[in-house]
């Protein structure tokens, strides 16, 4: 057993998860162990992501932002902190702390739109926009409360 070394000296921050990270077939070692954290991992369950010492092998340090063509934008003014978006986000991309929704982790969000569908407020506190649109513009043009159809 050995520790994978392909990224051991790579400290350039958030990286695109893609071809440039691939290693050749002859570089992949058998029985590799990839540590998710630097040093002792005990107690990480009690730490928020920002307090953890992630190893470069942890996919938390990578990004899949380029998958997105549309993105969710979050409007704090309407949100009731129900946490529906938190529980159903498949990409661990809803940042909630102390029972409050804080926003979206755009490094890991793939733009599936599930969070928007499960958001119960009227108008919704999350809506999908084109990736290229500025969040400020999106917020400025937020729709009004929809009247129930009679």
């Amino acid at each position, binding site marked *: 057993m050995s520790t994978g070394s392909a990224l051991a000296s790579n400290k350039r921050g958030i990286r695109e998860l893609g071809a440039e990270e691939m290693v050749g077939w002859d570089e992949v070692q058998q029985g590799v162990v990839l540590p998710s954290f630097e040093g002792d991992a005990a107690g*990480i369950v009690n730490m928020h992501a920002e307090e953890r010492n992630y190893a470069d092998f942890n996919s*938390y340090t990578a990004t899949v932002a380029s998958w997105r063509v549309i993105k969710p934008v979050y409007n704090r003014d309407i949100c009731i902190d129900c946490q529906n978006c938190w529980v159903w986000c*498949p990409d661990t991309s809803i940042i909630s702390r102390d029972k409050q929704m804080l926003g979206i982790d755009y490094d890991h969000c793939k733009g599936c739109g599930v969070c928007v569908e499960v958001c119960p407020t009227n108008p919704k506190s999350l809506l999908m926009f084109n990736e290229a649109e500025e969040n400020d513009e999106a917020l400025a043009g937020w729709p009004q409360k929809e009247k129930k159809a009679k």
Partner: protein
Amino acid sequence: MAITSIKNLKEFSTNNDRFEGAHLLCPGCAHSMIVRELMNCTDDNLVIASNTGCLEVSTAVYPYTSWDTSWIHIGFENAATAVTGAEAMYKARKKKGTLKDPDAPVKFVAFGGDGSTYDIGFQWLSGAVERGHDFTYVCLDNENYANTGGQRSSATPIGAHTSTAQAGSASYGKKQKKKDLVAIMAAHGAPYVAQLAPNKWKSMAKGFQKALETEGPCFINTVSACTTEWKFDPKDTIHLTDLATDSLMFPVYEIIDGHELNILYRPKNVIKVEDYLGAQGRYRHLFKPENKHVIERIQKDIDENWAMLQRREEARI
């Protein structure tokens, strides 16, 4: 505090995720919703093994891992074997006093797709449960071999189009009924067996917690909507799962000690199975006049199964 509070979602959301983003599962894939929830409903150390399938392949793209716990990448069929081997070693070392932290609570979990669980790893799962190891096996049932291009499995329902049971002029898709694996696992005498669904997050979290707390082998089948092979818009994963549980295509229930059956979700308005089938591309052909009989057959099977579950719940047998 070993098992974390699940009184409501706000409280649940204070847990720190141990399943990380930038895995490569499709946008909207239910596999990760289910795995995240299991890992969030406990603070215990976890030792997890995954059978080969979308989950394993997408969360361990060398040199990355999306797992913040001990996690074993193993063959298609033997996550149950690998994780129960780890469990046996853990017990032996505890007895010998060679563990670094013998009091730290540890839970052993295996994840498998339906292909690896219902079919190819079934013997390994059955053996591990029969040997009575203390572990929880979770099947992510998307009713096909998704990772290799959507082949039919014994979990694929009758009438579904798959790449190896195609619908066309000569066939309406898969001809055989889905295997009732939940009943088969209950018949092993496992102390806790359940079928759970991620749209019902609370019963799912409670079911996971029960399984983790129960000593002995536990089996949970979870409905895992697959946007790619079921052919629906990724944003609709939870909506589609609502249709699955509300049409009773996927009833949510548990079986304790092989006989005590409890229904965990009774839809207020049971919807017709057509509403569930019509929301997915894999069943589109069933709406042709010549295939109407298949929809009727599926509805009849659902009605009979629901009646049977209710009778079993009452009779405790």
